[in-house]
């Protein structure tokens, strides 16, 4: 039942619409991102707004974006809190890009196909499907609301014409099937064209219904609902490389599910102490190894990562490996523990490394070395002297995510003021870019930004005190094989592309 997936990761699941399922080629998917992140070579492809109930057209938008979003709200001043994007994820081919928002909605964008007429349009993403994944619920026992906010979306690899994804809020995971329909049967015997029943007495001949083309319709249906398994808030879901199981992690427990079974899950990690008074550490993120279906990692609020092997025992409370960096005594403060709390953990595509994000840094760990990371990148070290204020306004608890590019050579994460950072692991160069309406014209090259720490501020620099801490980039995604990135800034989704493409 458990497959050895050593090759599956590299199989090309490339698949045309409604075409037959292509057998895997067996060769590694070509990666076009060996060039690294480059400096100053990123351009804005499009800016997308998550649709809301109010559909007002704004007249001052660019022509480009209007064509793309022609039926959705554009004026961001009408956006509600429900539109705040809470997760972003490319599918395994990069053809689809899913976003989840605070209102429980999932919006899937599809990449524009290449066409001779509009070559420059390739790489843009248009809305493909929108559906309400989760609704707000009320827990009557506790008199508490369960938020409908989508915490995570994870795609399943494609196995037929339909697309499948997992979406989760704090308590319930759902498996959604997104499928297309572009033909419909016509010529029923017992019903007329409008669907009304015909009087059988009027039927004199019989015919065979035929399939006729219709306008493409994309429909999303919930296929599985995995509920009632989590007492605490789900923070992560991860699809296993066997493609038959997945895990969901909350603050204190991790459960293993089979996609076919919704009324049972296995608890594989439980760190809840017998006496809750002794609780000092929670699980913050978890992920399966990309190739080894028995291996997963989870991170904690104390800055540690545990790697577990499910073959060792049914309950993986005892880790196989324990990753922790010794504390730097010179930087010790009352906030040391809080800023060491890991907000995201991601395996590299190769499976050799894990990347962790804590409040001020991104760290890359080699699975074979537990005592310290092999690389540490400072995201916004200038905030170190502001920790008290950031604690006061709760920004210190912001959970930033981090992502690898397709070849594991560049890592990316977000910051404040709508800034996001990329680090090239090979050249050791890094760049800060901004995802904002004012500074981005379509197809214009993004200008690198710089934060001035003290002393004289140069012309294009921004000082630390001018940073807008309400504009935070928590969620980003990188196309699996190309240099295309998606950056979520509040209710805006920015798609950037490397100009080289």
């Amino acid at each position, binding site marked *: 039942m458990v497959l050895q997936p050593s090759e599956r990761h590299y199989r090309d699941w490339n698949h045309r619409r409604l075409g037959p399922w292509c057998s895997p080629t067996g060769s590694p998917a070509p990666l076009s991102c060996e060039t690294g992140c480059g400096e100053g070579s990123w351009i804005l492809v499009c800016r997308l707004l998550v649709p809301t109930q109010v559909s007002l057209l704004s007249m001052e938008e660019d022509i480009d974006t209007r064509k793309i979003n022609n039926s959705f709200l554009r004026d961001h001043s009408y956006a509600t809190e429900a539109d705040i994007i809470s997760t972003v994820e490319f599918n395994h081919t990069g053809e689809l890009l899913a976003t989840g928002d605070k209102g429980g909605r999932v919006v899937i964008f599809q990449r524009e196909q290449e066409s001779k007429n509009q070559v420059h349009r390739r790489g843009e993403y248009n809305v493909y499907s929108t559906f309400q994944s989760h609704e707000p619920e009320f827990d009557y*026992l*506790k*008199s*508490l*609301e*369960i*938020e409908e906010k989508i915490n995570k979306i994870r795609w399943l690899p494609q196995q037929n014409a339909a697309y499948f994804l997992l979406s989760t809020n*704090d308590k319930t995971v759902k498996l959604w099937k997104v499928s297309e329909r572009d033909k419909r049967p016509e010529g029923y015997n017992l019903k007329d064209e409008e669907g009304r029943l015909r009087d059988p007495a009027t039927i004199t001949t019989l015919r065979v219904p035929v399939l006729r083309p219709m306008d493409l319709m994309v429909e999303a249906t919930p296929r599985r609902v995995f509920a009632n398994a989590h*007492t*605490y*808030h789900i923070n992560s879901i991860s699809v296993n490389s066997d493609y038959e199981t997945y895990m969901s992690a909350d*603050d*204190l427990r991790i459960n293993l599910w089979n996609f076919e079974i919704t009324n049972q899950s296995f608890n594989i990690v439980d760190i809840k102490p017998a006496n*809750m*008074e*002794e*609780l*000092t*550490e*929670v699980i*913050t993120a978890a992920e399966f190894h990309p190739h080894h279906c028995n291996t997963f990692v989870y991170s904690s*609020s104390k800055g540690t990562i545990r790697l577990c092997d499910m073959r060792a025992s049914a309950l993986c409370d005892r880790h196989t490996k324990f990753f922790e960096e010794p504390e730097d005594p010179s930087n*010790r*403060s*009352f*906030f040391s*523990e*809080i800023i060491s*709390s890991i907000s995201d953990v991601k395996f590299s595509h190769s499976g050799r490394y894990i990347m962790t994000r804590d409040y001020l840094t991104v760290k890359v760990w080699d699975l074979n070395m537990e005592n310290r990371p092999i690389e540490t990148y400072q995201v916004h070290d200038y905030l*170190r*002297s*502001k*920790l*008290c*204020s950031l*604690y*006061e306004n*709760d920004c210190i*608890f912001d959970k930033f995510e981090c992502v690898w590019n397709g070849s594991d050579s560049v890592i990316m994460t977000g910051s404040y003021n709508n800034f996001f950072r990329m680090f090239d692991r090979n050249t050791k160069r890094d760049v800060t870019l901004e995802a904002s309406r004012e500074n981005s014209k379509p197809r214009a090259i993004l200008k690198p930004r710089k934060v001035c720490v003290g002393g004289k501020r140069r012309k294009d620099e921004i000082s630390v005190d001018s940073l807008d801490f309400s504009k935070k980039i928590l969620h980003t995604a990188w196309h699996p094989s190309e240099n295309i990135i998606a950056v979520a800034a509040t209710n805006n989704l920015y798609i950037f592309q490397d100009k080289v493409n």
Partner: protein
Amino acid sequence: MFARGLKRKCVGHEEDVEGALAGLKTVSSYSLQRQSLLDMSLVKLQLCHMLVEPNLCRSVLIANTVRQIQEEMTQDGTWRAVAPQAAERAPLDHLVSTEILCRAAWGQEGAHPAPGLGDGHTQGPVSDLCPVTSAQAPRHLQSSAWEMDGPRENRGSFHKSLDQIFETLETKNPSCMEELFSDVDSPYYDLDTVLTGMMGGARPGPCEGLEGLAPATPGPSSSCKSDLGELDHVVEILVET
């Protein structure tokens, strides 16, 4: 940021604060900052959203910070130093009765504190431990050995905001009904239990009496309810009450 000797940035109006504290002998600005951080943390733990379950990770991190401060204050000896400075050393049984009074206050529907509380008892350690119930807190802060007599307004903008928070908490009476359903065995972030946990370890001498305060009133919104996920537990509570 709170490393010793380094200038802290959190509280503005340093001059005002220091002026107000001119009379106090041993309070250094670092200790004051530490106290501010402690106060801020305690307020954060109390201000849980009433409608939605609060973030457990955040609560745990804040509570760990509180514990850290408490531990350092113990090591400094500043923790113990507070008690002797108090105007009246309350005997152990008096502290116990404080706890009982706290419970009684909790049982009633008001956020009003036990009557005995603000009246010149040992307020130093109590204020450090139990700025839990909203209405109690300002009184505690007022008579805390850490504070000067006089209006809190002198303590700068930060403390002013603390006061505003307390005033807001005071008006949140309906929330006290929820206390009846809260976990009596104290969820983790129940402040007093947290503090019990901190106290259990290392407080010899005069502070031992403070353990009697242990499960004092949970704050109006402190029982953040994530522990209520245990159905059995909730049924237990309902049956007991």
